[in-house]
């Protein structure tokens, strides 16, 4: 007799598919936030599986900071071609040009993405936005709901969240209000990588190790390129590196790594000593409560 026990990866996959189908069945106009990073790609892969053989029944939105790695844009376009999904682009540069937002002194466009995202969501009438957030990423996310309620300013109030019991999600909103939905809530970084390997999911090649010319700043390794050129007095070295997260090209650091295949990455992640944000994202080091603040403003 068969055991009828689903492996943990297939259980997570089934849960994510359930969540996505629930949103499409109940919400008026969902949209998937697509950064081009591995989590948003896994989400899109799951969306394809949830509605096969039909096409993904909602658009994806890329909040384009103008600070993209070219290989991430190439990968995004491959996914759009392959799946036939509709792509909406919300441009941060255009937001700056129109005076909606102002460039930050440190060159980070992370914070100013938020008004651009919220304006685009409102313009398109999106009442549910899929995000790739995982509860294991950061403490501010450990208590996040799968269906996260946002007021009509797109803001998150930790005190005004709905209890989530069983898998009975409540997406009912009034006009102007919306929900963020996190289908990957219960996945860990290792789950994501194990799944990417198991499903052989197409990713930007940044995630795999190769020889890169890098410069070290405050303990972080930045590739020497147009976004992060060498400054006076700095010297570059060539190291085998890969990226663990993909954010703005001017702020995302890489790590030394010999992981040239997906299997290597899974093994590396299984043995790794730093959480992925702590290792490579200069923008999250600002304060311990940085994530919580950005979340309240509606960033994720």
């Amino acid at each position, binding site marked *: 007799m068969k055991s009828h026990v689903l492996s*943990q990866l297939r259980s997570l996959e089934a849960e994510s598919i359930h969540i996505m*189908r629930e949103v499409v069945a109940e919400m008026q106009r969902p949209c998937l936030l697509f950064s081009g990073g591995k989590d948003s790609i896994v989400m899109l892969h799951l969306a*394809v599986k949830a509605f096969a053989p039909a096409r993904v029944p909602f658009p994806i939105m890329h909040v384009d900071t103008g600070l993209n790695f070219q290989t991430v844009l190439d990968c995004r376009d491959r996914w759009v071609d392959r799946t036939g999904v509709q792509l909406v682009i919300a441009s941060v540069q255009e937001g700056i040009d129109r005076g909606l937002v102002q460039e930050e002194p440190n060159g980070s466009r992370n914070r100013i993405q938020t008004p651009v995202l919220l304006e685009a969501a409102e313009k398109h009438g999106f009442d549910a936005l899929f995000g790739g957030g995982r509860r294991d990423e950061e403490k501010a*996310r*450990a*208590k996040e709901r799968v269906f996260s309620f946002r007021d009509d300013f797109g803001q998150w109030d930790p005190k005004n969240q709905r*209890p989530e019991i069983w898998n*009975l999600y409540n997406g009912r909103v009034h006009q102007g209000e919306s929900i963020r939905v996190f289908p990957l809530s219960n996945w860990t970084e290792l789950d994501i990588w194990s799944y990417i390997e198991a499903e052989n999911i197409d990713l930007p090649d940044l995630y795999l190790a190769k020889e890169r010319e890098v410069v070290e700043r405050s303990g972080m390794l930045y590739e020497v390129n147009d976004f992060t050129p060498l400054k006076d007095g700095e010297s570059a070295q060539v190291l085998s590196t890969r990226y663990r997260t993909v954010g703005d090209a001017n702020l995302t650091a890489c790590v030394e790594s010999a992981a040239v295949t997906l299997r290597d990455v899974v093994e590396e992640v*299984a043995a790794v000593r730093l959480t992925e944000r702590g290792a490579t994202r200069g923008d999250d080091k600002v304060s311990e409560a940085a994530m919580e603040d950005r979340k309240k403003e509606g960033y994720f």
Partner: protein
Amino acid sequence: MTTTLPDAGEAAGAHHEVVSGDLLRFATAGSVDDGKSTLIGRLLFDSKSIFADQLESVEQVSRDRGNDYADLSLLTDGLRAEREQGITIDVAYRYFATPKRKFIIADTPGHIQYTRNMVTGASTADVALILVDARKGVVEQSRRHTFLATLLGVPHVVVCVNKMDLVDYDEQVFEKIRAEFTEFASRLRVPDLTFIPVSALAGDNVVTRSENMPWFDGSPLLSHLERLHVASDRNLVDVRFPVQYVIRPQQNDTRDYRGYAGTVASGVMKPGDRVLALPAGLETTIASIDTADGPVEEAYPPMSVTVRLADEIDISRGDMICRPNNAPTVTQDVDAQICWMDESAALVQGKKYAIKHTTRWARAMVKNINYRVDVNTLHRDEEATEIRLNEIARIRLRVTQPLFVDSYQANRQTGAFILVDEATNKTVAAGMIGGAAHQY
């Protein structure tokens, strides 16, 4: 709560990789005082699930506060408001894995005012972990947590008698608590009850067997959780497939495709099986069970699949596919126990709410409040006229359209519902259909 930790380098060893193991969800309830945060910290720490930078951050904050030891509760108390107040006010989810299993911990605060959170955490749990302070024995809170675990149908209860180091690892203390707890639990329906004497602070019987308690012949907590057999807890007998979404591609190459997407709530479905569609009441045969990876030979919970039927029947979201000789009860009258979760308004007789049961939404009116249950004494108050935040009650609802229900005891999927306030859209109650989980 504080604990001594080895240095960061030792803590952050190889993380375990789990691809083939299954998933175990467990809920913990307790207050800071009984060592719950320390126990969770110990599980994460000894199973090498804490990252070096997380530990550094905890140690830094502990030093800044003048603590002698790293405060492991900082790992789980996430929101700034909570850290400032030093309390845990919501369900926090934590993850760790061993080579055998992946674990999801729903960590909930234990105080009575957070019954809502405990109910949330227990709703999906395979195991409830209940902490008892060896010095204090079985207290009101232990009874409440056990009652809530059984109310939510959690199949396994593990009682950790903690702080054994403070009672000289005395077997008699443990046995006395075990006897008292067992006596209390006999009034509840606890299918599987296990007791483990531990010291979360010192690490006794958490991950490794304690040398201080040779008289204990059971497993340490982690081994117990790794080995716990949960497959048989799932209902594989009664086929229940709530239709979630109808897949009808608008592309030319798949125009004739019509599939019913959903998550198998219970039972095992196979192509060729005779099935009954509710509420249509029509019988047909499963033509195929599809996934994006191709058709499968069988589907069981919690698989998400797409079912195609041999005959064209009008089926939409909220309908139920089952077997002709094994169908749920079709009813508009629902008797249920509820936990009220709304702080701003009470449940009163005659009030109307939106109800969500499986994938079906309807409206429901409160016909009667039968009684309110005191979550500490299990006393029934039959005079109760309103049910407030964190209170448990037995009520009767009249629903605007038929629901396809089983008793919660027989089926945690088709026996469950939520009530939603139609004005605020807030989820205001968790409901469990059918008989009481406790006797008197």
